[in-house]
């Protein structure tokens, strides 16, 4: 190792902030593992699932939905022009799932028994399905990410193998994702008398799936915009604007489903009661679905980098609000209690989120992630890979858009 290349990192504002979050997070973990869940969280017997399930698990999995959405578009539907964003999206999803598992290890009462779900089966439990989906899909994501690692270390043998199985792998990933996103909604199907009627619906799994697709697209826009600012990469505006356009359609479907669901269950009256739930529902649907949907209908907004980013951000916030409403705010009245996360619970979550940002930025410096970075990546014309690999690789196939030019 060349020690002369090791330098003390410069202290910048964000690095200082992240360092503080990490220290507080590690302290929170220390309290949690030495003194138990009771000392570190505000969870109670009447409210056993708090922020770690509501945000870290439900939102974490949802925000990682970009992976299967973009993979399906490129590999299954053959929309070649989305190929340049596959790598950052897979990285986001893979990281997302690893962080979800980290959060689960914090939240589980006996984390060292996490493997029990693999050997002690109960197919009647949605949690059983969730456990298997987390495990299998994380494996699929690792395999989908592996070509990037193999490429970096020039391991041509494994690269060839992974390219051969890429299509079945993507299909498996799409199916597992669909099951997993929807199963997080199914978790709450068994709580009809706890969850507020504005959110409890027999089609909760469908809501969770459709909103995950929307948020997967918007997460891709969000992360491309931020990477652009952080790494001075050029924005692929045409491509991102197209994602925005697809998001409009998905949000519209979600909205129609929501309206039909309220109608079908005859629960309109809850919308006009002066309750906290009604207030939150209105904000969730207007700010998180209707406003960004209308904004993204305009070409001007879609092709304006900040306009597109802001609309995507609204979708993300609306999504987070929806998951928190289902898991926390919509659940307190039916549980006849109140809940607000403890400082330590929030610190663990903040630490996990900042870990995500840090690992993403470090990984994208180390591995060939972005299409126009200095590392060899992206289109075949730039890539020093063997001939055989050019056709069927995760990121090496010549972009359809480019070949047309």
């Amino acid at each position: 190792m060349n020690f002369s290349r090791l330098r003390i990192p410069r202290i910048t504002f964000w690095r200082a902030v992240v360092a503080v979050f990490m220290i507080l997070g590690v302290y929170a973990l220390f309290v949690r593992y030495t003194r138990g869940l009771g000392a570190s969280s505000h969870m109670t017997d009447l409210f056993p699932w708090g922020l770690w399930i509501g945000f870290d698990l439900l939102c974490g999995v949802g925000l990682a939905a970009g992976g299967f959405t973009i993979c399906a578009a490129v590999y299954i539907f053959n929309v070649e022009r989305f190929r340049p964003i596959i790598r950052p999206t897979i990285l986001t999803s893979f990281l997302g799932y690893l962080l979800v598992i980290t959060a689960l290890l914090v939240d589980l009462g006996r984390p060292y028994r996490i493997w029990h779900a693999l050997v002690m089966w109960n197919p009647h439990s949605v949690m059983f399905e969730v456990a298997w989906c987390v495990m299998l899909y994380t494996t699929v994501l690792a395999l989908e990410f592996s070509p990037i690692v193999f490429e970096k270390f020039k391991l041509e043998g494994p690269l060839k193998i992974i390219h051969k199985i890429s299509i079945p792998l993507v299909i498996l990933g799409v199916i597992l994702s669909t099951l997993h996103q929807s199963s997080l909604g199914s978790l709450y199907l068994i709580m009809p008398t706890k969850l507020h009627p504005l959110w409890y619906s027999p089609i909760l799994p469908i809501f969770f799936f459709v909103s995950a697709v929307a948020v997967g697209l918007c997460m891709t826009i969000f992360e491309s915009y931020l990477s652009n600012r952080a790494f001075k990469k050029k924005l692929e505006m045409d491509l991102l604007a197209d994602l925005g356009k697809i998001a409009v359609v998905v949000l519209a479907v979600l909205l129609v489903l929501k309206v039909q669901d309220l109608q079908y269950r005859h629960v309109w009256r809850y919308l006009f009661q002066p309750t906290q739930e009604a207030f939150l529902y209105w904000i969730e649907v207007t700010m998180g679905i209707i406003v960004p949907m209308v904004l993204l209908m305009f070409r001007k907004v879609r092709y304006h980098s900040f306009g597109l980013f802001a609309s995507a951000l609204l979708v993300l916030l609306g999504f987070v609000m929806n998951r928190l409403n289902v898991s926390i705010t919509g659940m307190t009245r039916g549980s006849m209690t109140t809940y607000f996360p403890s400082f330590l619970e929030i610190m663990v979550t903040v630490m996990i989120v900042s870990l995500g940002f840090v690992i993403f930025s470090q990984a994208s410096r180390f591995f060939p992630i972005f299409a126009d970075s200095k590392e060899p990546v992206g289109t075949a014309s730039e890539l020093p890979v063997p001939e055989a690999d050019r056709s069927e690789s995760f990121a090496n196939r010549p972009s359809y858009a480019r070949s047309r030019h």
Partner: protein
Amino acid sequence: MSKGLLIDITKCIGCRSCEAACKAQNKLPENNDPDLTATTYTKVMERGDRFVRKMCMHCQNPTCVSVCPVGALQKTNYGPVVYDESKCMGCRYCMAACPFQVPRYEWSSAFPRVRKCIMCKDRVAQGLQTACAEACPVGATTFGERDDLIHEAQDRIRQEPGKYVNQIYGFSEVGGTGVLFITDVPFEKLGFRTDLLKEPYPMLTWNVLSKIPNFVGVGATLLFGIWWITSRREEVKKEEAEALSKKDKH
């Protein structure tokens, strides 16, 4: 042959012998927790001038058993809903899902367990009655075959129709529970949840879970099909382009 308990609220005098017997039977520390806790499996709650025992309802088709991913909770064929702490990984889905909000957690332990009434499963397996039923001095808690207890409850209501509310709580709630209540004060005034569904809750998720194999089969076929069609389109395009460029050369 499923055992259960019949609790007659009109008879309870609030002496809390059942609580004490439960603590002794399960070797739980003496304390005066105001509600169910990890060390209090049953609690006599004061509701106005009535006393209402709170405990696991031992559902006929228990929500907790269906949601437990590792099968740590089981409904025994003789009635009690029991817990195997060696399987539990602490996801607390049972607690989140229980419509009666009964299971408790050892929040301050580094190796926490779920705690709740297990209907004295060892005693019941030996043919004995539960400790609480044995301890009750006034017969407010009776142990027996669930079907017999339902007949007994119906008899009592029939004999004194002016006294009892004409309802057995637990007869049809969440598809039926092992613990049954009868009362002279309406259940909603005693803190009972009266908004519960009449069918077993596990069906709500099983209706979705049971369709997963179908979904996987159809989904995989469809996705492979779409891939096959779209990639073929690419090939056709390529061939057309080649044909075109050949023409240009001529």
